[in-house]
């Protein structure tokens, strides 16, 4: 009986727990070195010239443990964005908008994203968004349409942003893939920039070999990074692994983001990278969240803040 009760009450309990407050850490990047400080110390944010927010891995269509309501947790994430003191200039979604690339999943995601009060929304696909059609539906709905391959770049307040696609034409036994065409474009795209230009690169799968046995990496990312090393400040934002991992390599700092849907295990912890089902409903919000990035004018540094759902 007890089991039956808790099961029927699961969703209500889950939503109630989503209201609990979470904690966050502000990450400041200075010369490629991260400095952490509590989220409530707002002094460092006053010199920001603009901010943007990253969300990832919404997996609309997923309906199992530990999160039977992925639309609800995405909505909570968007509400957190809307609660920011300063409206973010734009939002980056780093892929896996949907779980199975179904039209109705894209419809739901698209509708929910209208709730985000941000200047613009930019997307790159995850492998879950390109099933069956090599991303045709994703690119039709969410693509920037700058190039046939789907990759793109834009400038904002002196910083250069590059959206890369690394989830198509994957080879048996391999990791994520950028392809020769995209690498040639990237090399050319970066060629005209001064080394002082802050560069932000975003893509779904990690652009460094985070944990290859679980497919957490990109086969030809080394070539892409070779084009980026001359820059004084490079930030690489990825999703895919549903948790925060960070790495500093020279002037390049790598971050992966939390999911808005469900967490995955730490690298190598357990038999595979499936949903972390052991997370209890009352604890789930601590594993989900958004990332807020502020561009600090002095030195062109980026301050990166991760916030869990509240």
């Amino acid at each position, binding site marked *: 009986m007890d089991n039956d009760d808790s099961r029927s009450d699961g969703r209500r309990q889950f939503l109630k727990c989503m209201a609990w407050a979470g904690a966050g850490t502000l990450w400041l990047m200075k010369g490629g070195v991260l400095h952490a400080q509590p989220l409530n110390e707002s002094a460092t944010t006053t010199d920001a010239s603009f901010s943007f927010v990253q969300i990832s891995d919404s997996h609309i269509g997923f309906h*199992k*443990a530990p999160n039977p309501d992925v639309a609800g947790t995405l909505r909570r994430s968007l509400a957190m964005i809307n609660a920011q003191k300063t409206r973010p200039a734009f939002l980056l979604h780093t892929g896996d908008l949907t*779980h*199975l*690339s179904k039209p109705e999943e894209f419809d739901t995601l698209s509708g929910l994203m209208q709730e985000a009060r941000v200047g613009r929304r930019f997307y790159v696909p995850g*492998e*879950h968004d*390109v*099933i*069956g059609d090599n991303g045709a539906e994703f690119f039709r709905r969410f693509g920037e349409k700058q190039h046939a391959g789907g990759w793109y770049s834009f400038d904002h307040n002196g910083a250069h942003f590059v959206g890369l696609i690394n*989830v198509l034409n*994957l*080879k*048996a*036994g*391999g*990791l994520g893939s950028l392809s020769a065409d995209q690498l040639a474009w990237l090399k050319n795209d970066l060629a005209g920039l001064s080394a002082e230009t802050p560069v932000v690169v975003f893509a779904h799968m990690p652009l460094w070999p985070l944990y*290859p*046995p*679980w*497919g957490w990496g990109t086969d030809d990312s080394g070539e892409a990074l070779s084009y980026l090393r001359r820059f004084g400040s490079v930030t690489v934002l990825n999703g895919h692994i549903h948790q925060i991992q960070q790495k500093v390599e020279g002037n390049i700092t790598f971050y992966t983001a939390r999911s808005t849907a469900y967490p995955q295990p730490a690298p190598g912890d357990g*038999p*595979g*990278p*499936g*949903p972390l*089902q052991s997370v209890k409903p009352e604890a789930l919000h601590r594993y989900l969240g958004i990332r807020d990035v502020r561009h600090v004018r002095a030195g062109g540094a980026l301050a990166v803040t991760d916030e869990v759902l509240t």
Partner: protein
Amino acid sequence: MKRVILLACVIALGGMAVACAAADTASAGTKPYQVAIQNFAFAPKTLVVPAGTRVVWTNRDDEAHVITSAGALFASSKALDADDTYAVTFSKPGTYAYYCSIHPMMVGTIIVQ
């Protein structure tokens, strides 16, 4: 020939005597062979079957997977959600390598004799 099939059956099914006897008495092509998709891997990773066999994959993960032939020798599955199945009948002898198109580190082989 019978000896070869029997040996293959033992390898594929890990010595399950009952299933093997059934395969031996039934004509090739009537008994489907099973591949489980579990913990981001195919089990068994290599499956040896007689020509005409129907192979059924069952997704035991809560993550989606997509069965994809390396070299497009057989049709790809749609996205397999948890507990979904996908079946292919292999009529011609040969080695059929396959992988999951969204988790390409997952690889397997069907050897058709």
